[in-house]
């Protein structure tokens, strides 16, 4: 690959040509410079999109109206191409689509599980977008990508009419008359052959135009699979560092831009050659790519917008109404045992910080509970208080720790004997989970739905279902990926934030009583109720508008 400086600004001709079409097979990697910011933003947006694809795919029947509508709105909101227009405005969206796909390839090629996930979502996304094309556009796509299958002549169709009709209950007399049938080599249509859902003659299957999507999808899946394998090999070759090759490397780094250089099959051959000029590893990108595959891309709930809006005596009732199951469980064991181990303290403590507990309140909360157990006041102040302050960024290197996302709770630090943290949908034995849900009075049909989702390893969706059941609504209307998000959404459902009692005075009194210094930040103005409420609602709204 030759990176002459003239390349810097304009896209190649082939790329411009590529962006004239709504859908592509991602055969050619993008060749241009983009800023690091764009690199990251594109990747994160596509990740959000793919996660939505995954959620929607489990919640609705693929291809149904609800499914399509949800996807279209997500595509739209993330600024990806969402309709097969050929307008110039689509150019940028298509470019984003192109680039973001390739960035995620790099992030998701490393392990079998990641590859499988990535391929599945990309195939589903492709299917949705393919379905939106007109028949004309579909044909065009096939032709452009060398999926040129011969069509049967009219004569042959008439001759084979009965066979075609009897091969698939999907094919009617009208289909045979009106549609073209493509002759596809059977190796390209294995699923249809395996299930004997298609007419097979002399090694070719006869597919009506309307069903050609299966073939196309198979092709797309195979190509993507192969490419990911190549990506892995290339990256392994250079010890897991992303390589950009260029002859004028320094120029690119100076301007804080990234030269996109993706290992393609032809590139791979070049890279295997021993003699490579100026190979640099780009340290800025690898950490990002590593984190993308474990990314939580929503809010981090670290900025406390509602500090002091919750009073400690509300926590018990809130735990039953608005806490996700993991936190409810932690709260319950804290109350029962007057103790929680470190993992539980972290998970629950940060969550409480996220819902608005101040440092003073937190100290009060933990202290009063632990004292009821085996810990005396002194010991608490010496040992545990430090850790609470640490959580709030008041000790050590003063990192303000962010509340754990669902991903983090599910993936890291699994609970062992005596622990109560983790995600109950993930870490509890299904029988115990069932009992727990029964104890919390979740209706039986709901419990079985939840258990089904758990079986399919859709833990966050199971929690979402728990949300829907405990709030008595049909559709949660959000994609759960953070416990604090659960809390906010719950409060929203239960009365748009109006239920959060402000009891500022109580809070202040508690602060004054606690051993540590009160924090000034929690002084709420004694404004009239409605104004404060508006403020609150506004604050809550801004949660949703954030990224």
């Amino acid at each position, binding site marked *: 690959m030759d990176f002459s400086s003239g390349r810097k600004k304009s896209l190649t001709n082939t790329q411009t040509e590529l962006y004239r079409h709504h859908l592509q097979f991602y055969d050619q990697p993008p060749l241009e410079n983009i800023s690091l910011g764009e690199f990251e933003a594109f990747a994160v947006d596509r990740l959000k999109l793919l996660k939505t694809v995954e959620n929607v795919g489990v919640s609705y029947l693929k291809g149904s109206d609800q499914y399509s509508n949800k996807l279209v709105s997500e595509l739209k909101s993330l600024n990806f191409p969402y309709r097969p227009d050929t307008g110039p405005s689509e150019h940028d969206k298509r470019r984003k689509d192109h680039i973001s796909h390739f960035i995620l390839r790099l992030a998701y090629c490393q392990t079998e599980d990641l590859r499988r996930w990535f391929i599945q979502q990309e195939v589903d996304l492709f299917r949705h977008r393919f379905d939106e094309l007109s028949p004309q556009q579909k044909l065009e796509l096939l032709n452009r990508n060398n999926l040129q299958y011969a069509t049967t002549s009219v004569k042959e169709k008439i001759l084979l009419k009965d*066979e075609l*009709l*009897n*091969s*698939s*209950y999907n094919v009617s007399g009208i289909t045979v008359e009106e549609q073209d049938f493509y002759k596809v080599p*059977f*190796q390209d249509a*294995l*699923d249809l*052959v*395996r*299930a*004997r859902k298609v*007419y*097979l*003659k*002399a*090694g*070719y299957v006869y597919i009506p135009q309307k069903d050609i999507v299966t073939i196309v999808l198979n092709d797309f899946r195979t190509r993507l699979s192969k490419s990911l394998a190549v990506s892995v090999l290339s990256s392994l070759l250079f010890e897991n560092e992303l390589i950009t090759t260029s002859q004028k490397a320094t120029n690119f780094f100076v301007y804080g831009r990234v030269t996109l250089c993706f290992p393609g099959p032809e590139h791979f051959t070049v890279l295997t050659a021993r003699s490579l000029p100026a190979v640099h590893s780009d340290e800025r990108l690898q950490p990002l790519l590593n984190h993308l595959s474990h990314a939580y891309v929503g809010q981090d709930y670290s900025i406390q917008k509602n500090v002091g809006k919750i009073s400690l005596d509300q926590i018990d009732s809130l735990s039953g109404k608005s806490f996700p199951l993991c936190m409810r469980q932690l709260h319950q064991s804290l109350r029962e045992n007057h103790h929680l181990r470190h993992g539980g303290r972290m998970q629950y403590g940060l969550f409480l910080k996220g819902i608005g507990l101040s440092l003073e309140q937190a100290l009060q909360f933990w202290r009063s509970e632990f004292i009821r157990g085996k810990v005396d006041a002194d010991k608490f102040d010496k040992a545990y208080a430090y850790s609470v302050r640490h959580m709030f960024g008041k000790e050590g290197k003063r990192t303000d720790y962010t509340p754990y996302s669902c991903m983090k709770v599910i993936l890291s630090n699994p609970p062992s004997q005596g622990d109560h943290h983790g995600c109950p949908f993930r870490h509890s034995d299904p029988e115990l989970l069932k009992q727990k849900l029964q104890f919390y009075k979740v209706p039986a049909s709901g419990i079985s739905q939840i258990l089904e989702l758990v079986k399919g390893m859709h833990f966050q969706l199971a929690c979402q279902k728990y949300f829907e059941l405990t709030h008595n609504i049909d559709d949660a209307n959000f994609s759960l990926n953070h416990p604090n998000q659960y809390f906010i959404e719950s409060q929203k459902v239960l009365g748009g934030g109006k239920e959060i009692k402000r009891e500022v005075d109580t809070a202040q009194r508690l602060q004054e009583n606690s051993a540590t210094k009160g924090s000034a930040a929690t002084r709420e103005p004694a404004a009239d109720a409605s104004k404060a409420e508006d403020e609150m609602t506004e604050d809550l709204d801004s949660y949703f508008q954030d990224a």
Partner: protein
Amino acid sequence: MSSQNYDSACLPDLLPLYYRRLFPFSQYFRWLNYGGVQKNYFQNREFSFTLKDDIYVRYQSFSTQTELEKEMQKMNPYKIDIGAIYSHRPSQHNTVKSGTFQALEKELVFDIDMTDYDDVRSCCSAADICCKCWTLMTIAIRILDRALRDDFGFQQLLWVYSGRRGVHCWVCDEGARKLSSAARSAVAEYLSLVKGGDDTLKKVVLTDPIHPFIRESLLLVERYFSRYALLEQDILGRKESVEKVLSLVPEDILYLKELQQVFQNEKKPETRWKLVKDHAIRKQVCISGTSKKGQHFEKEIMLQYCYPRLDVNVSKGVNHLLKSPFSTLSLSLLSFEPWTGRISVPMDLKELETFDPFAVPTISQICEELDRPRSGEEDGKSEDAKEKENEKEAAERRRIRDYKRTSLAKYVKYFDRFLDGMACSWKGELLKKSDLQKDF
């Protein structure tokens, strides 16, 4: 059913004779070399041998026909299996970096074993076969051969009698050899209609529309059903068999009781079957829409009793080893099962209807035939001339003369014709290649 019991002491004597004078090495090599179109095709092929005392060795490979001969004559394998063509010489697989030694190609194969039909044949069970149940193999071959040719477009099919109780099919087309494991399993699934093990009563379920493949297969089954099932197997004769057949008739059918009653009076199997069919037609006409299942129960019965039962696992794996044609044994001498010592011979489908597995020569038979005084030999060379030829050629000629004197001859002849058929396509490939290399 007769199976000649062999004195196991014979075998050590017979095998060396077989490999020195009878095994058709040049045809064998001609086959597996596939015209030399692809480099190292023969060299990278895996063979496995079962030797004396049940020693099993894998990853055998050979560079030339001569090497193959020499090794086999040295080792005298009791059984030979053919595996895949690998990325490297199998005999050197330990020297290859792990992960890079891979099975690349192999013929698409099918294995039909009579034991898989035990639930539907009454004459024999397990390893036994007789002329009555052999028809099942005939039906299997007819159906699969048609499907592989007409539906899949394969042309170079070699059917081989496995030597004991079944048949194998080797699909040698280039396209077939290059199929992935997923493709092989898809082909095998397409060809499978009988599903379920011991706890499944009803192993064939048909729904509308009836796929052309099923229709074609049914036509073939129907050709044999009357004679095979009704007459020879007598499935509607004896009480237990009748019950078994009727258990495949859908329960909701009001006619079931009727059928059972009618059977009290009507004893002839053909008539009974006709009654079953009539009821089936009646059900199809009546039900229309209320119950989709069970409309084709008479077809399902025919298929359950006759349709080929494949072992998908044999066909699926690219690296799966299968008994080689012209191999002898298929079990260890340590077992006490009587073994036949019959040679695994290629089958000429033109003579399928008259194929008799019990007429297939055994190794001791052909060794015996070898010792018979020569009669009616067409060989006119003088003794001197023979001595003047170089030894290898002489040995070759002798071997050719030798097998021709035995019952093995017609099978090797047929194998030759099969290879001739393939050779045309190899020639075409070689020409293409040399054109590309501008190699005139």
